[in-house]
Structure formats: C-alpha cells, structure tokens
C-alpha cells in the first residue's frame, strides 16, 4: 500500500514539476531536473563528510582489518541474498548462499573471514529489486535518492524498504548500536569504492549522466545475472515500436520455464530458448546499424513509442524501464 502510494505521489509530483524538468533526452529519466539537484546534494555531502571519513578510515585501518569488516557486513547480507535467489527459482544458488552464511558465521568467526569463498561457494549479488525485475517488473523512472544515490521506481520505492527488513542489523533492539552499525557499513562501503569513484571522476565528461548510464546498465546486467541479451540500440533501431515489450519479455519468460539451476545456466537458457529473431538485435553489426539508422533518420523516421499508455508496468520486462519512463513523461 505504502509503495503504491509512493508511486502515485511521484506521478503527481511529476505532473506538477514536469515543466521544469530539463530535457536531457533520456526516456528513462523524466525527472532529470530534480534528480540532478539531488545528485548535486549527494555529491556535496560526499565531498564534505562521507568521503573524508571513508578516506580517513581507509588510511587508519590496516587492510586485513578492513577486509574483516567488509566480510562481516557481507555475511549478514547473504541470508537475504539467498532468499532472493530462491524467490527467483534459483534454489541451488540460494542453498549456496545459506551455506555461505552458516560456514562463515561459524568457521569464519561471525563472518569476519570469508572461508566459504575459499571453499568454492561464490558470493552472489541479489536484492528484491532484482527479484522483481527477474519476474518481469520494469524499472520505471530513474530516481536519485538522497544519500543512497541512483535508483529507480522499482528498486527505490518498491524494493529498498524490504531489502532493509531483510538485513539482520535492522532487528537489533538497541537503537544506537543499530545506528552505529548502519553508519559503519556506510563508511565501509564508501571506503571500498574510493578508487572506483576517482576513476569515474576522471573518465566522465558529465558525472550525472555517466552515473545514470552505469546504474541502468548495471541493474539490467544484474537481473540477467551478468549475461543480459544484447539490448536494442536506441541509435540503431528507429522502428523499435510496439514490438519492444514482447521482445524483452521473451527471454525472461523463457528463463522462468528453464530448469531450475544456477544463475548462469538459466541466463544461458534464456538465450537459447528465446526465438533467435527475438534476441538478435541489430547491434551485432554496430557500424552497419549506425549507417542504417542514419539513412532511416534521413528518411525522416522517428523513434516511435508504444501507443498503449495503459499497459501495466508488470510484464514489460526490464525494457519496461525505458518504456515506463517514456510513458511517464507528461
């Protein structure tokens, strides 16, 4: 209920603010104006507080100790990761996650040592947003959350609250202990990505759109467990009209029917089971595709959007994120 309300609230806000949203041109990001403001705020906060604290932490703590802290928090996350793997039908992966938790909590001394990885139980990356995505829920509009950063309607409003409830630290009765642990986890996470954020600062012409593109691509890849089908290239497929939702939904449907197994196997199965014409995208010949799209542009063809405005978000597949974004635009 709360989630539905958040969505409605956002739609209303969108209607009111649509006029002042800058036209960045990304159909996933109808709220670019607000998002950029929140992004600036986060960036300022990071520069002023979070990054200095994380840098200090990294320079003070010996590397071994930092890895221990990271492992401790990572171990607590494995339970919820296992739940989500089971919810996605990947029972084997889920069992491996629970096994990791058992092994690391005991032999690994409360999770400080990651003995499970050495024993061949690989760490997975799952959350409830990915579970929703796996079942075909589109991402919806891109949102930058205060402090937490890039997200979208599905992951931010639909799943994050539940993800927090799936994290054991949430259930610590002693509130100040709980808050300290949450803060420690934030600092630890930030310290681990210091190198990456420095790289992004170096590489990006526009940090905002770089972060947005990276988030959207990364989430899509995670939902397909690292093997997403090639995405229709917006530059190369001016005619990607109403056919898009079915095309994107097909691999997911196929994955659902695939025998339950490891993440990779189901993703591979998704490729195999989907009719080739549904996943074969023009991007396989990118240069040719560009030429083709250019001649199409010359003929005056415009990328068309689905006419069905009432189509539910559910069932649109991950491609739904783009479509939903387009739909949300006033």
């Amino acid at each position, binding site marked *: 209920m709360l989630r539905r309300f958040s969505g409605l609230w956002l739609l209303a806000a969108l209607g009111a603010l649509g006029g002042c949203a800058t036209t960045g041109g990304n159909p996933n990001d109808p709220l670019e104006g607000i998002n950029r403001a929140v992004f600036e705020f986060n960036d300022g906060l990071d520069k002023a507080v979070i990054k200095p604290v994380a840098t200090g932490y990294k320079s003070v703590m010996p590397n071994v100790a*930092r890895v221990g802290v990271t492992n401790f928090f990572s171990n607590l996350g494995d339970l919820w990761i296992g739940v989500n793997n089971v919810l996605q039908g990947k029972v084997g992966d889920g069992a491996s996650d629970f096994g990791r938790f058992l092994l690391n909590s005991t032999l690994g001394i409360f999770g400080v040592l990651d003995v499970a990885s050495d024993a061949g139980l690989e760490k997975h990356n799952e959350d409830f947003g990915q579970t929703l995505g796996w079942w075909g829920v589109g991402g919806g509009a891109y949102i930058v959350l205060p402090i937490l950063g890039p997200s979208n309607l599905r992951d931010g409003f639909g799943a994050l609250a539940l993800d927090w409830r799936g994290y054991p630290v949430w259930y610590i009765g002693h509130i100040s202990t709980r808050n300290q642990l949450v803060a420690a986890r934030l600092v630890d996470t930030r310290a681990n990505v210091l190198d990456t954020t420095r790289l992004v600062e170096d590489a990006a012409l526009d940090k905002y759109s770089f972060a947005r593109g990276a988030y959207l691509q990364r989430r899509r*890849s995670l939902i397909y467990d690292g093997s997403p089908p090639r995405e229709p290239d917006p530059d190369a497929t001016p005619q990607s009209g109403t056919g898009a939702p079915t095309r994107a939904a097909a691999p997911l449907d196929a994955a659902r029917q695939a025998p339950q197994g490891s993440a990779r196997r189901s993703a591979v199965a998704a490729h195999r089971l989907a009719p080739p014409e549904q996943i074969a995208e023009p991007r396989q010949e990118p240069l040719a595709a560009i030429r083709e799209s250019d001649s199409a542009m010359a003929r005056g063809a415009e990328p068309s959007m689905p006419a069905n405005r009432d189509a539910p978000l559910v069932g649109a597949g991950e491609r739904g994120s783009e479509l939903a974004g387009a739909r949300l635009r006033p």
Partner: protein
Amino acid sequence: MKKLIRVLTLWLAASAASAQVLAPDALVKNISDEVIAIIKQDKDMQAGAQKKLESLVDAKVLPHFDFTRMTALALGRNWPKANAEQKKTLIREFRTLLVRTYSSALADYRNQVIEFKPLRAAAADTDVTVRTQVRQTGAEPVGIDYSMEKTPDGWKVYDVVVGGVSLVTNYRETFNAEIRDGGIDGLIKSLASKNRALDSKSGVKAK
C-alpha cells in the same frame, strides 16, 4: 650473411603473422599477463606514476584496440555528421581520455586474479566477447568483458564492459548531449578541456 639476414627477416615476419592470428581470448590473456608482470616489478607504477603507466599502456595495450571503431560507436548516429578532420581529432582526444582512465585503473592493481571464462564462439566468428572475472579478497568478483572484432591486423577490442556497464554505450549518451548542445566541435572542446584538466591534475600528483 645476407642470406642469413633474409632468413631471419622471413622468420620474424612469419612469427609476427602467427601472433596476429592468435585466438582472441589467448590474446587478452597474454596482454594482461605481460602488463601485470611489468607492474609487479615496478615500484613507481605501483605508487601511481601516471606517465610511466601511460607509456606502458601505449606500448602494450593500445595496439590491440580499434579506436576508430570505438569512437564511431560512441558517437552513434552523429559519427557520419563529422568531417574527416573532426573525426581525426575526436579519435585522438577520446583515445587520450581512455588511456588516462585505463592507466589510473592500473595504478590500483593489487594482486587481483583474472580468470578467463571459456570462449563461446565458432572458429569462423569475426565478432566475439572474451569474458573475464577479476577476483580480489574482500570484494565481489567483477566481470570484465572485451568485445572484439577480427581485422586483417588480428583481433581488436572495440568495447570493454565492466560489471555489465559498456564503456562505449555509457559515453554515447554524454556525447549525444554534448553534440546536441554544441555540435561536433562542442564535443571536441569538452573532450580536450577534460584531457587538459586531467593533465594538470596528474602534474599536481607528481609533485
């Protein structure tokens, strides 16, 4: 003596030719092994000596990248709108930016292990993806995939996908926006000033 030289030249040419038809995954593996071995022996590079890292990347890595294709892909439908001179400048500036970024990523190298996944490709394929996993203690493994194309000069990388994020796709959006606002020359200007900013930054770091 002359004959010996001729034989030697022939032999060199032949070995060069055989190096060119190296399988794409073997090629990526050779390059990473070689680059890592060099960094492991060089304290300056480990400390982040930018210029030294850049010349290493220039010599060992770049010959295996197809920057023309990368730039064309990153510009997408705007590529044919650039004239020959603009194209040349774009390729040069984009190349410089990528070298900077890549070298500073290498400076962070700390005993990560690179695993190669089996190559899923037929012998006749001319476009393949070499998939690797970079493992490190205390962190989730990161997938790094190389999109490669077979050219007369051997296999060339035209995109790198890190953790599911394609470099070329990610740049395309920014490039499109820059071109929308300031045309092709606007993009060239932004790239050049970005490179200059990075130049002065690494200069500060060296002091």
